[in-house]
């Protein structure tokens, strides 16, 4: 038996729409099996993962809070991936944005600095994230170094830098020697949308980012430029588009958005800078970007869905002692199914039962 791919004359729009749903369905089937192997009741586990978090307001807000950085980072990454350049170091840009943005609250801590602090922090975080992302971009454009490897290496560097800052210069003197900065002052904190709740201004910013990028990609010549450089680089050059400039631009935008997400996360839900404050948003955002089919609105939905699995994972751990790593496995499997189903947009799959002797090899 042989699996054969047949190229479709045109991409199938129907499948483009339903392929993420097929992928989610397949992932849930796989997870059911995995839960059973772990000796957990699959029905209860799935309920804990996907239904329970939707049933109370606190969890619903928490989903939006978790989705905020995921969506912001993923929207930026989608621009890179559309342009066929591979920024996989968003986690590093996220951390650097958080560190750079934390500089102001640390130095103004305890002073009577006014309301300019938070906006200035957001600017610092964005700029730092963008600059940090430009390192691999420049290495690629100037020297031809693989942006995949350099951007990833810089994640480790950013992580160590964060570690150094909170253990060294920025450690809270009253913090019982814990590696953390002091709690940010109220003027350095992202305001909540509902008092006493969890939802904060970052969610609104994320929605604005989605809208802006959706317009840019769908309606402007710049958006077209990004898509054509990714889809057919030689044709793009023929069209007069400079792919090097575009690499720099997409990296700067995605790094800036990741940096912005980083400082919002620190100045919002977390409230201070500490190592390990990110559960790997920068990596999960890669999955969000693909699950959302590199489309801003799709990414918004995908971000909410993956945020749900984060919350669900925590609840399942508390309620059923299911290890947190299951969430990561879930996310990894989901990405596989998403990519596999995407293949259906361009190809038709067909199983062939051949006559006895066939040597051309498909897997």
């Amino acid at each position, binding site marked *: 038996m042989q699996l054969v791919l*047949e190229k479709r004359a045109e991409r199938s729009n129907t499948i483009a729409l339903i392929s993420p749903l097929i992928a989610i369905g397949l992932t849930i089937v796989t997870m059911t099996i995995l839960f059973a192997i772990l000796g957990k009741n699959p029905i209860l586990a799935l309920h804990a993962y996907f239904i329970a978090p939707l049933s109370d307001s606190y969890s619903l807000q928490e989903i939006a809070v978790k989705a905020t950085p995921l969506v912001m980072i993923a929207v930026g990454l989608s621009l890179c991936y559309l342009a066929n350049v591979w920024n996989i170091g968003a986690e590093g840009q996220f951390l650097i944005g958080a560190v750079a943005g934390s500089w102001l609250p640390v130095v103004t801590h305890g002073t009577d600095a006014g309301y300019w602090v938070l906006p200035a922090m957001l600017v610092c975080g964005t700029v730092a994230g963008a600059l940090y992302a430009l390192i691999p971009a420049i290495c690629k454009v100037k020297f031809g170094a693989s942006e995949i490897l350099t951007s990833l290496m810089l994640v480790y560097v950013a992580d160590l830098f964060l570690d150094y800052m909170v253990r060294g210069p920025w450690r809270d003197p009253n913090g019982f020697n814990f590696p953390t900065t002091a709690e940010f002052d109220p003027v350095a904190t992202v305001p909540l949308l509902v008092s006493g709740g969890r939802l904060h201004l970052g969610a609104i910013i994320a929605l604005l980012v989605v809208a802006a990028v959706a317009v840019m990609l769908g*309606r402007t010549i710049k958006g077209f430029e990004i*898509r054509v450089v990714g889809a*057919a680089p030689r*044709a793009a050059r023929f069209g007069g588009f400079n792919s090097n400039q575009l690499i720099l631009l997409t990296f700067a935008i995605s790094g800036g958005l990741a940096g912005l997400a980083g400082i919002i996360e620190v100045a919002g839900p977390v409230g201070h800078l500490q190592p390990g404050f990110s559960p790997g948003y920068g990596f999960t955002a890669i999955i969000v970007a693909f699950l959302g089919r590199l489309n801003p609105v799709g990414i918004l939905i995908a971000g909410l869905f993956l945020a749900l699995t984060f919350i669900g994972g925590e609840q399942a751990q508390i309620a059923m002692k299911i290890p947190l790593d299951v969430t990561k496995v879930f996310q990894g499997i989901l990405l596989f199914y998403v990519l596999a189903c995407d293949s259906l947009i361009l190809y038709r799959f067909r199983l062939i039962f051949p006559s006895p002797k*066939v040597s051309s090899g498909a897997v």
Partner: protein
Amino acid sequence: MLDPTPTGLHSGGTPLLQTVGLTKRYGNFLANEAIDIDIWPQQIHALLGENGAGKSTLVKTIYGLIQPSEGEMRWQGEKMVLSGPSEARARGIGMVFQHFSLFDNLTVAENVALGLDGKESFKDMSARLEEVSNVYGLPLDPKREVWQLSVGERQRIEIVRVLMQNPKFLILDEPTAVLTPQEADQLFIVLDRLKAEGRAILYISHKLEEVKRLCDTATILRGGKKVSTCNPQQETAASLARMMVGADIKEVKAAAGRKTTVPRLVVNDLNMEPDDPHGVRLANISLELKGGEILGIAGVAGNGQDELFAALSGERQCPDPGTIVIDGHAAGHLSITLRRKLGAAFVPEERLGHGTAPRMKLSENALLTGHAASGMVQHGFVNTAATLSTVDRATETFDVRKAKRDPEAASLSGGNLQKFIVGREILRNPAVLVVSQPTWGVDAGAAAVIRQALLDLAASGAAVLVTSQDLDELAEITDRIAVMFHGHLSQPMATAEATREKLGLLMGGSSLEQKEAPHAVSA
């Protein structure tokens, strides 16, 4: 079931290879439909047909690369099922591909070894390689890597590789498409010799004069079906063409009273290093092209035509603005977008991936070259109505056939996509059009439409530069012809004086070298 073959050279006996009702289906599409062909030893059998007629499907089936859906093949009278090319090679079937099946970064010897299924040691193989290439007068250096070699040398590797299998039957797919007329003549000597040795040859070509001269039998395919098997020597080129196309081909006509006016495209001593290590250096290229004129550039592929296109279009820029002058403006330093704004338009050789983004819609591909100068973009926003109307106008003016209003570029047939690309540029009323291989791989109908469009454009006062490997095409539409060789461009000559022999010599670089000595290139 035997087809009565007209030459009468083989009364009785069995053919070497027979296909009986050979059919290949892709989904609902019939690439080959019930094809019967007999191949006899000691014969050169032509396979004729337009692009998309099913020639390559048929030879791929015979070479074992694809499996037939129905029908069978018989080898020396017995049923033959091939599971793959190595089995075909084991039977004595060899193939020289049109788009060579070579590996650029491997040596000649390694390339040959890959075609031989590894039954002898590399050393023995290398020795035999030298012997075979000497015997047939096809010299090769086994240690060189393929990317260093000319197109003609690459074809030699393919042929020697096949000959080393000592095949009973050779398939050659468009072997002369990339050769100079003189090189082609040498190939014919080799083919005649192979025929005399008793081998059978299936010769795919669309050069009808060549087929008439060389082949004993011709089978003509059209739309996946066999139209006829005939003796090409008893046919005329026109009658063969009619069988291929299924109708008379419209002749293109230059408008009467065409007047050349001021120079619209001038190139002054253009020199350019290649940006890719396998590329060709452009040296001292100068030319002048007036409005209303069509200049042809002939030459074997890989002699700098791609580099010249990049330099003229602005995909690569020159430091000195004056090297390229478009409509009186120094443009050497300008980007392709700015050159388009000066009224230049460009059609590259490669339709998919260069001229268009294959997986994008036609309207987006209209935007690709139209964004600079035609109101498709306002304040950074794309005017979709304007891009769609370009598609509609190109469709109507140039008879582009497609399944829906705005399909993806890749879903169009080669001829229709080329009509769209040429139309997209001509609709912008360019002052200068630079076009590479305008009708390469295009059916005869579309080719006629495109050639006529180029003539009409020139008649309207534009300057048109056509690069082509097809000498017949250049003879048909150009006013003057120059030849490119190793990055140099010869002095243009009037098309009426450009004989095949003259052009062939220039394409082979022979007379150019004499001219090269005093370094006299001027315009």
